[in-house]
């Protein structure tokens, strides 16, 4: 075919920080040759609030309300890591019941995060309908959170040595209801999205990351797993009591946007499965059962034992972060969320370095969009799943 050779001036445009299709306040300086992306440079820092510096003059108790503002869509994970880091440094044990409650909360939070990702990702491509559907399900998760923690997003629920409060009456029943309700809803999304020819044609083979590449860029979470690396910190670090549940790491091999979509959708199903298992295995059962057993067996029963407590010991407001340093990480829905904590036996940590998954995953974006079309930027960025709150901190 004969093409008229056109030589257009290169155009440099700003996508964001305030752009209708941009996620948060990310700014992309895009160099375009017509429709083709020649180069893309992300500019960060519009949501920088100095979270690491704030941590240096706050006790852990004081700092906990801040952390839900890092990744405000997977709030439980930020709390988990803030609590896990000093916990491990000070060798604080967590009761089994508390650990199970934590796992249930974390997996619910993972579902909430993936649900919202699904909505925005599909909306980035042009399908608005699923966006409204996912909010319906996410709302239920937040209702469950509100009943247990008192707040829908800014929970302030995790404490050093357990969680702030036991699960409320009837919560276990309702959480079970939710898990049984969610799986058919995910089937519904899949019927709507997965095989849709427009969706498939649009993102199949888009933004492909090879296995080596993914590892070299330091990617984590679904970004890494979609590229054929079976790496899940829940299996690798054996934190909380994930080993006691029967579940599989969800992964895919093709490494494109479609693979990332499948990994996340399957992870939601897996999480629902894990929550159902955890609810069954919850030491002491639901709160009402635990209370009944305690009444029945009297004050010195096994039901008052350490395993059935929601917290081992209420953390003192002057809890000291012991001298020492270490790196602790959890598998957040976006990837590896870690904290490098240096304590010097004072109430304040000396250094509180946060390793957010979004920040590291975002690095690969310029390479992914180079040579693509302008319209693909949003599809690829959507599949990376970034939250500016944790990228900029």
């Amino acid at each position: 075919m004969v093409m008229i050779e056109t030589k257009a001036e290169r155009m440099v445009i700003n996508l964001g920080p305030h752009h209708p299709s941009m996620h948060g306040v990310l700014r992309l300086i895009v160099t375009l040759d017509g429709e083709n992306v020649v180069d893309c440079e992300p500019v960060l820092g519009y949501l920088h609030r100095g979270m690491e510096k704030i941590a240096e003059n706050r006790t852990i108790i004081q700092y906990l309300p801040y952390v839900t503002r890092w990744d405000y869509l997977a709030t439980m994970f930020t709390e988990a890591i803030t609590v896990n880091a000093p916990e491990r440094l000070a060798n604080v044990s967590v009761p089994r019941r508390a650990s199970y409650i934590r796992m249930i909360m974390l997996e619910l939070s993972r579902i909430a995060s993936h649900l919202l990702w699904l909505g925005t990702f599909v909306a980035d491509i042009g399908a608005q309908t699923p966006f409204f559907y996912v909010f319906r399900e996410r709302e239920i998760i937040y209702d469950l959170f509100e009943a247990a923690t008192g707040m829908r997003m800014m929970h302030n629920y995790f404490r050093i040595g357990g969680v702030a409060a036991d699960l409320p009456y009837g919560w276990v029943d309702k959480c079970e209801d939710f898990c049984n309700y969610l799986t058919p809803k995910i089937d519904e999304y899949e019927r709507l999205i997965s095989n849709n020819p427009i969706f498939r044609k649009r993102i199949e083979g888009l933004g492909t990351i090879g296995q080596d590449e993914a590892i070299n860029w330091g990617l984590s979470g679904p970004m890494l797993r979609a590229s054929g690396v079976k790496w899940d910190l829940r299996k690798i670090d054996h934190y909380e009591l994930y080993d006691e549940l029967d579940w599989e790491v969800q992964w895919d091999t093709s490494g494109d946007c479609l693979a990332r979509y499948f990994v996340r959708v399957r992870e939601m199903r897996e999480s629902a499965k894990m929550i159902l298992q955890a609810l069954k295995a919850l030491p002491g059962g639901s709160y009402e059962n635990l209370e009944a057993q305690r009444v029945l067996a009297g004050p010195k029963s096994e039901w008052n034992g350490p395993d059935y407590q929601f917290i081992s010991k209420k953390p003192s407001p002057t809890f000291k972060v012991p001298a020492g340093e270490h790196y602790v990480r959890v598998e957040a829905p976006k990837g590896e969320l870690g904290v490098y904590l240096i304590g010097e036996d004072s109430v304040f940590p000396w250094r509180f370095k946060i390793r957010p998954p979004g920040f590291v995953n975002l690095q690969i974006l310029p390479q992914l969009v180079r040579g693509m079309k302008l319209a693909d930027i949003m599809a690829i960025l959507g599949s990376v799943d970034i939250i500016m709150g944790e990228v900029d901190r």
Partner: protein
Amino acid sequence: MLKFLNKVGDYAKEAIQSAKFIGQGMGVTFDHMRRRPITVQYPYEKLIPSERFRGRIHFEYDKCISCEVCVRVCPINLPVVDWEFNAEIKKKELKSYSIDFGVCIFCGNCVEYCPTNALAMTEEYDLSTYDRHELNFDSVALGRMPTKVTEDPFVTPLREFAYLPKGAIEPHAVSHTERRAGKRPEEILEESGNIGNNAE
């Protein structure tokens, strides 16, 4: 010619596949015609805040011992506690207490750590004012009780998901007085056949 026919065949197959999957998707969309909206028609309908809901803080003046724990656990040391040491009774006397709800983030640390339970969370969440200084509550304003959604005759109260009966997903279909999920402890004991055993 055969190549052309193959092409036509492939194209037709693809078109049929596409039609099938789009039809499947549309099936999901049109299925919503028989579902009721789940939205809460605020302000005609309101959700009942959960029991642990962290709304505006209630303060009981007489219970406060001016220990300032609330200040120390607050992320920004927000509560203003003004006290004076009374040498006669050898106790701190509280002169005034205030919290600025324009700055408060309702994390609940002060309530959790208050040793005398002078602080409590209420279910009040609509705190908008025309002047931000009105949000700086003194001990009198902090002592006021919130209004209840269930007692407002103009409002249909709706329960949140965790407070619905077992199996119910949607609050519109059930009355807000219907019993929520979760057995009572005595029912659990009765089921396990252990009732009254410890009374002997």
